[in-house]
């Protein structure tokens, strides 16, 4: 069934469709509509889940960890400071290999208070062992959450589905609320708490064994990259919507590639059209899957990386990832931080003026 929905509503509806057993969440702008919608679905009997109104984000994820450790499918949603407050438990969930799925509504971090879109919150959690996906449409939010449960439970890693605050969370767009059918099989964790087979989970572990468990997270993350392709392939077969780790646009004969994430990267496709009309061979790549980081095939191209974030003293985080994985010079545009409105005309102009290498802060430089 197709209808108009916000990014937040799409997240909530996907959670319902994924037969989640326990939802624990704390409200924060601009995520509130996700938990409000879920609360309403639960209280009107449309969704058979326990909804725990926790007193903090730390407890939100702790409750999800408890539920998930006992073998139940769990969900939480947060944003910005809420995500940062969870940080300890974010590591814990991954270390415990629990396939929790979280929606993070990307928002800036204080001070100053700023409630608008910014990728700094989730990117500051990049090294925690969570898979990270960045959606750019309401439909993609819905689809990515469905795929994330399937994938997370396959590789026993948690997944974070990120969407831009307000720009996507509060925008209404057409949404096909596809019944998931048996796309997500019933959850069956190999390491669930079991009173008939008592085990102590996460007790003191010496350096040699600890080392191996960490390596196993790394290996699982690499396996997730392959498994994710399989999940996407099956999703496309069943529901007709195709996704990949990177959404490429007019890249075939391009000599210049704009790389970005989230809604800004989709707007960049309009900039590509504009530049193509001028005869410039420009294409774009929208990175959907940030962890595990995919190969982008950028060798020999001129790369313009759009970052809605910055690792202070090092530059845009996406640009760094590209440089690390590919032997290419990168021109890094830092734009959109704290909700700065970035129009496709502006992106096009920046690409026209782009140098082979360097950094440019939109609105500052």
């Amino acid at each position: 069934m197709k209808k108009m929905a916000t990014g937040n509503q799409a997240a909530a509806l996907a959670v319902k469709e994924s037969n989640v057993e326990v939802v624990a969440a704390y409200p924060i702008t601009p995520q509130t509509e996700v938990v409000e919608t879920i609360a309403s679905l639960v209280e009107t009997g449309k969704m058979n889940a326990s909804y725990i109104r926790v007193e903090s984000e730390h407890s939100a994820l702790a409750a999800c960890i408890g539920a998930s450790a006992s073998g139940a499918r769990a969900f939480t949603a947060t944003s910005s400071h809420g995500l940062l407050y969870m940080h300890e438990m974010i590591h814990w969930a991954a270390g415990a290999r629990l396939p929790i799925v979280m929606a993070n509504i990307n928002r800036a971090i204080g001070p100053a208070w700023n409630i608008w879109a910014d990728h700094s919150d989730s990117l500051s959690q990049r090294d925690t062992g969570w898979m990270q996906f960045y959606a750019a449409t309401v439909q993609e939010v819905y689809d990515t959450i469905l795929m994330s449960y399937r994938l997370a439970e396959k590789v026993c890693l948690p997944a974070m589905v990120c969407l831009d605050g307000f720009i996507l969370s509060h925008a209404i767009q057409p949404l096909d609320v596809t019944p998931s059918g048996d796309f997500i099989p019933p959850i069956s964790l190999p390491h669930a708490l079991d009173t008939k087979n008592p085990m102590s989970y996460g007790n003191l572990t010496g350096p040699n064994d600890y080392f191996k468990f960490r390596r196993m997270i790394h290996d699982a993350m690499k396996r997730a990259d392959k498994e994710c392709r399989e999940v996407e392939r099956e999703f496309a077969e069943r529901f007709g919507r195709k996704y990949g780790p990177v959404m490429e646009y007019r890249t075939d004969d391009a000599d210049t590639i704009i790389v970005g994430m989230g809604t800004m990267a989709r707007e960049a496709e309009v900039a590509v059209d504009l530049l193509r009309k001028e005869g410039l061979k420009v294409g774009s790549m929208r990175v959907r899957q940030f962890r595990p980081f995919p190969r982008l095939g950028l060798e020999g191209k001129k790369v313009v990386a759009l970052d809605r974030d910055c690792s202070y003293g090092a530059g845009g985080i996406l640009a760094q990832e590209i440089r690390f994985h590919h032997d290419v010079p990168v021109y890094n545009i830092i734009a959109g931080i704290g909700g700065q409105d970035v129009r496709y005309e502006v992106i096009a102009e920046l690409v026209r003026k782009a140098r082979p290498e360097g950094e440019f802060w939109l609105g500052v430089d």
Partner: protein
Amino acid sequence: MLDDIPQEEYLLKGNTACAGCGAMLALRYILKAAGQNTIIVNPACCSTVCQGTYPKTAYGVPVLNIAFAAAAAAADGIASARRNKGKNIIVFAGDGGTVDIGIQALSGAIERNANILYICYDNEAYSNTGMQKSGSTPYGAITTTTPTGRKDSKKDIDLIIMAHRPKYMASASAAYPKDLYEKVRKALTIEGTKFIHVLCPCPSGWRYSTEKTVELGRLAVRCGMWFLYEYEDGKVKLNAPTKAALKRPAPLADYVRPQGRFKGVNLERLQKEVDEEMDRIRALAGIENAKEASE
């Protein structure tokens, strides 16, 4: 005298707790009362280490180890999943994880009436990290962060918990294992949040000879440093040892003298605090103040 307590041991021999550990003595009876159908949630505390090292554990029931501040919320997460209905979900947390860093999650869980039993085993300091002061450390006690003795007074977590009106709350002691056993049994028949606060003397932290764990635990009750009572339906009911102690408390010095942590304590001030606490628990239990009654 042991006939009514099951012989099964769920705390296995050869755990890594210190000799004479009051917390392990308490846990032994908590697990006997709870039985096999139990999941323990264990935040950072002595009990994290007492389990032993991967791939072995001395605890015979499933344990979810969790971050320091997260125990009550994690336990609620387990209890909230449909699949865990009917299981005993028990938090076993130290005083630091309860009175200090975990208090927020605990407060939220009680407010939601999470179906868990939260047990705080209180050894009155961060014993696992080498005896630093916690909110539960009594006035005058020497810890590594109060090297000349604590100058201010401890936090009364029981009153804070009571303000949440939990379904059931009790104060117990490792030195009264049968009483503790009964309280856990009772708590586990009640739906909703239950809280049991257990005093667990700690030879390493309190600086006394290991054989005195039970003796000191008893003395704490007899001199009025610790009360045994239950809170149910909004009412405080004192247990017999505390009733007796309130009538005729043992000399505080008997409790204080064997403990190195109280070396140089201002006994008068400590006595004043104990007297005030005794008046307060009398008031809560609806017993007339002894002093007023005699006047």
